[in-house]
């Protein structure tokens, strides 16, 4: 006989109560794990996209909000806001390479696809693209497509593509790079400006500098040349992560409420168990159980609820976040999650964190009932009908 066996037998004596209490804690932990998993996936993906930016500075119109900054990384469409003259002034500054982007949206087979108007040469140099098939040709009749877009819509070299009434041909398919570049159609900038009638404007300008140690100097030069906002890639990453983090924190708070409700469930279950088992507690007293032993047995029961509920919750949480990520990723704000491998099917850190959390809150929930059990007078308990 061991204490764990005694605890297990006590827990499973009322199976339905055991299952429901376990389910409550499992649901709470699953929601925490889901949000942690999605949050970590989202952060990893943001970092990956930021690394793929290939530029140290980003020039945007003044007053852009966080959503628009995130869209720079997600490749979602952005309003055309920087005039051609501004772009020219920036490009004339020594020691930097400015690459303008016009991010719009095309429609292929009734599905929206990001379309980016770029300068062919500087863009290829900035992003370090390779070709999977065909040739890298951007002009008034040709576009290139990202690898994932080609796969998704079966766009082979030479395939026709209609954008806002203009006919184009797919000249090449880019080699996969593992970020949002795989998910867009690329068009010559001036052609895109004409097709989308932006009047020569672009959405933003990515800037690569020759000497990163002089980055503050470049920022000052750009700002003196044009009335624009300049953020470094690190600032952009920080601000995007801060926004995503605060949203994640708010969601985790909601998940914590679910866990809190489960804790009350455990407390309630344990209190009920104590009333039902008063006589047994008295018997344990008579057999020589110390108060601390009775306390340990009841806290142990709560801890087992936490551990088992935690294990089930972790499994359900990872499964749900993995399955749900592509659906959640349909929203522009969380579009990162739609890309492959952004959400892990298992993460040891989250698992340990969730299990420790589950056991801890379960133990805390069981403290009061366990104290009540330990304080019972043996005579009162044995005499209880």
């Amino acid at each position, binding site marked *: 006989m061991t204490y764990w066996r005694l605890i297990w037998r006590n827990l499973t004596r009322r199976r339905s109560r055991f299952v429901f209490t376990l389910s409550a804690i499992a649901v709470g932990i699953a929601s925490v794990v889901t949000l942690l998993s999605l949050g970590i996936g989202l952060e990893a993906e943001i970092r990956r996209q930021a690394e793929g930016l290939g530029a140290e500075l980003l020039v945007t119109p003044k007053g852009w909000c966080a959503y628009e900054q995130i869209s720079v990384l997600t490749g979602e469409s952005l309003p055309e806001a920087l005039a051609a003259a501004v772009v020219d002034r920036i490009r004339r500054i020594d020691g930097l390479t400015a690459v303008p982007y016009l991010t719009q949206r095309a429609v292929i087979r009734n599905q929206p696809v990001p379309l980016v108007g770029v300068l062919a040469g500087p863009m290829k140099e900035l992003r370090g693209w390779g070709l999977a098939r065909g040739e890298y040709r951007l002009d008034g009749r040709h576009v290139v497509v990202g690898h994932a877009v080609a796969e998704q819509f079966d766009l082979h070299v030479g395939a026709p593509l209609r954008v806002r009434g203009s006919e184009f041909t797919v000249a090449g398919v880019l080699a996969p790079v593992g970020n949002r570049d795989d998910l867009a159609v690329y068009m010559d900038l001036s052609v895109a400006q004409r097709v989308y009638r932006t009047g020569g404007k672009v959405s933003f300008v990515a800037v690569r500098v020759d000497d990163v140690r002089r980055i503050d100097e470049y920022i000052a030069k750009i700002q003196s040349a044009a009335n624009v906002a300049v953020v470094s890639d690190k600032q952009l990453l920080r601000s995007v992560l801060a926004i995503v983090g605060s949203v994640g924190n708010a969601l985790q708070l909601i998940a914590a409420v679910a866990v809190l409700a489960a804790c009350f469930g455990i407390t309630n279950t344990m209190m009920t168990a104590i009333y039902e088992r008063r006589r047994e507690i008295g018997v344990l007293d008579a057999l*020589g159980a110390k108060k601390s*032993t009775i306390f340990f047995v009841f806290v142990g029961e709560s801890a087992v609820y936490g551990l088992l509920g935690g294990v089930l919750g972790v499994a359900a949480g990872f499964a749900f976040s993995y399955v749900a990520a592509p659906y959640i990723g349909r929203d522009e704000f969380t579009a990162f999650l739609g890309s492959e491998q952004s959400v892990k099917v298992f993460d040891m850190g989250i698992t340990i964190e969730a299990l420790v959390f589950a056991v801890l809150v379960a133990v805390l929930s069981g403290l009061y009932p366990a104290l009540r059990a330990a304080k019972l007078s043996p*005579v009162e308990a044995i005499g209880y009908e």
Partner: protein
Amino acid sequence: MSDPILRAEGLSKVYDGGYRTVALEGVSLEIPRGSLTCIMGPSGHGKSTLLHLLGGLDRPTAGKVYLDGEDLTSLGPNRLAEVRSRRLGFVFQFFNLLPVLTALENVQTAMLLAGVPRREQADRSRALLRLVGLEEKMHARPGQLSGGQRQRVAIARALANDPDILLMDEPTGNLDTRSEEDLLAHIRAVHARGKTIVIVTHSESVAAMAERIVRIRDGRVVDGETAARRFTNGRPGR
């Protein structure tokens, strides 16, 4: 009285939960080592309270209980639990077995609480269940046993840590005549092994095997007689 193993001096117990009830008042008695003593008296007159105080399950309002000279009333809860675990064995009217455990596990639980190693628990528990004639039922849960069998498991459990004294509260109170006779035979066998036994009972047949009877009325000892005196008076089994 020679060599008392258990001694009570001026024991009083007053319950005061809004309404003051004197359960015991100035009870003094000695339980000789190796004796079989019955405590008898009408219901509600303090028999079980006395047994609980003698066994350290409850604390007296006044008075002392000595077990081999050690004052149980002055012990801390942990030491008292240790004494209950190693030196005393309890048997109750309603069996009070843990329903989720088998007969074997019920006996083992008493050993677990005394810190007996797992392997030793199993061997000793089997031997004890054999002693009370339940080796065939050791894997049965209390719900699968008859009243008499449950009480025999309770006796085996009380003997788990080889206690000096067995304290029994109406052990035959819930048994039919046949089960009662069977149980008494087992109690006699345990007594024959040298155990001191104190039984609270209403049953004359239980009292008949006692060497000494203590009578309680209104919380006081009104009579303490030996078997020799009873038989001399021609009132066996009173």
